[in-house]
């Protein structure tokens, strides 16, 4: 009996404690920066697209929600012709972000993506591409890779030595 009365008293004291409800949409919960929300496609610090259409994210995706098609521009730089993510299938696991070698595809702490019609949940590249580098500011894949694109020949990457002319190696 005493424990019942004591419980009633303790619950009554809860009236004087702070309430934990976050009044959405007037206030939003603070999310950590690595929170897995809406997917974006980031750009280089120089402004080009980071995505090289390597299909690694589409292979890593456990629910096959990513569809893309690779193509090359005139100077040999690969980029996706179309890049489509079906957000009604996406489970926001982050495997695509882990698989991407160029830090192109990233998950951001944004969740307000509700739509009235299901086809509106399929995001194209224009909907996914952002203007900045996203979560990884300094990284430019083409500056460290050995591929030659417009403005950079083989041997001009960071930390790379110029290619050896094998004819000079002959005894």
């Amino acid at each position, binding site marked *: 009996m005493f424990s*019942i009365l004591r*419980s*009633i008293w303790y*619950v*009554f004291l*809860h*009236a004087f*404690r*702070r*309430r*934990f*409800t976050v*009044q959405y949409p007037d206030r939003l919960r603070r999310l950590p920066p690595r929170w897995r929300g809406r997917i974006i496609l980031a750009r280089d610090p120089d402004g080009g697209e980071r995505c090289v259409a390597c299909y690694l994210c589409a292979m890593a995706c456990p629910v096959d929600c990513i569809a893309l098609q690779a193509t090359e521009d005139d100077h040999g730089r690969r980029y996706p012709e179309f890049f489509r993510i079906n957000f009604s299938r996406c489970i926001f696991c982050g495997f695509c972000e882990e698989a991407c070698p160029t830090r192109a595809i990233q998950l951001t702490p944004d969740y307000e993506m509700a739509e009235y019609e299901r086809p509106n949940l399929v995001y194209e590249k224009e909907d996914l591409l952002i203007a900045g580098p996203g979560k990884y500011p300094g990284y430019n894949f083409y500056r460290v890779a050995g591929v030659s694109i417009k403005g950079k020949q083989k041997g001009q990457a960071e930390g790379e030595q110029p290619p050896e002319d094998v004819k000079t190696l002959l005894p």
Partner: protein
Amino acid sequence: MSAILLAILLALGVLLAVLILAGGLVWAERRLLGLWQDRYGPNRVGPFGVLQVVADGIKILMKEDWVPPFADRSVFVLAPAMMMAAVLLPFAVIAFAPGIAVADLNIGLLFFLGMSSLAVYGAALAGWSSNNKYSLLGSIRAVGQMISYEVFMGLALMGVVILTGSFRLGDIVRAQAGMWFCVPQLPGLVLFLIAGLAETRRIPFDMSEADSELVAGYHTEYSGIKFALYYFNEYIGVSLISALITALYFGGWLGPWLPPLLWFFLKTLVLIGFFILVRATLPRLRYDQLMSLGWKVLLPLALLNLLATGAVVLATGH
């Protein structure tokens, strides 16, 4: 003529006040439960969420008012109305202030006890007429619980009657002018509180509803306005028990400098808040625990209380 008109107006006033109180309880219960559970209750619809009652009312009236084809139609429709009559009528005998009572019968308390027995019919007939296993189980539990707890509810009240010498609620309130009956009759107060919780099937005695276990007990098949009536009946029952406890144990309208009616109202509101606090705190009793508590613990305690009160009154000659 004007006396009759005044009586009719008083009756209508009490009815209106009770219905408004029960409607306000819909909002108050959800807000108070939220207060004690570290969250907000409804606070979007109207200032502090008071229009939630209107929203709930519109929602429930828009629901399909369906009588199951396998159910006993006439009894099915009558059961909530019977229960509502049984919980509304005792408000007629409660004396809210000196002179303000619809019918201050000289057997007022006995009338309340009789009406609470009739309320059992509402629960029993609902489950029986639904023609549904779960409803029947729920109503069996409700009937068993209500009947068992009525036994010592009456006995606990007898302590008050012995101290007063009358069943009339007005006399009982006036007899508390020296000392409120919650002091000499503390065991009786606790017993009547527990019995009141069980009569209105509030938590911790809501095994007959058992929201997560028995679908919805005896009102499983009810929808729309009939379900709203049951929902209201619970709140009217809570208001009734609170008003009775105020009148019987906490001095009714007695108090220093506020008008008597306001005192009665305030005390009733505090007790209703206590009912809601108990709902926020206690887990549900299992049905066999409930029955054994009623018969093996509380009934002997009620008898002891009666014995002690009678002995003291006889010895001291009050």
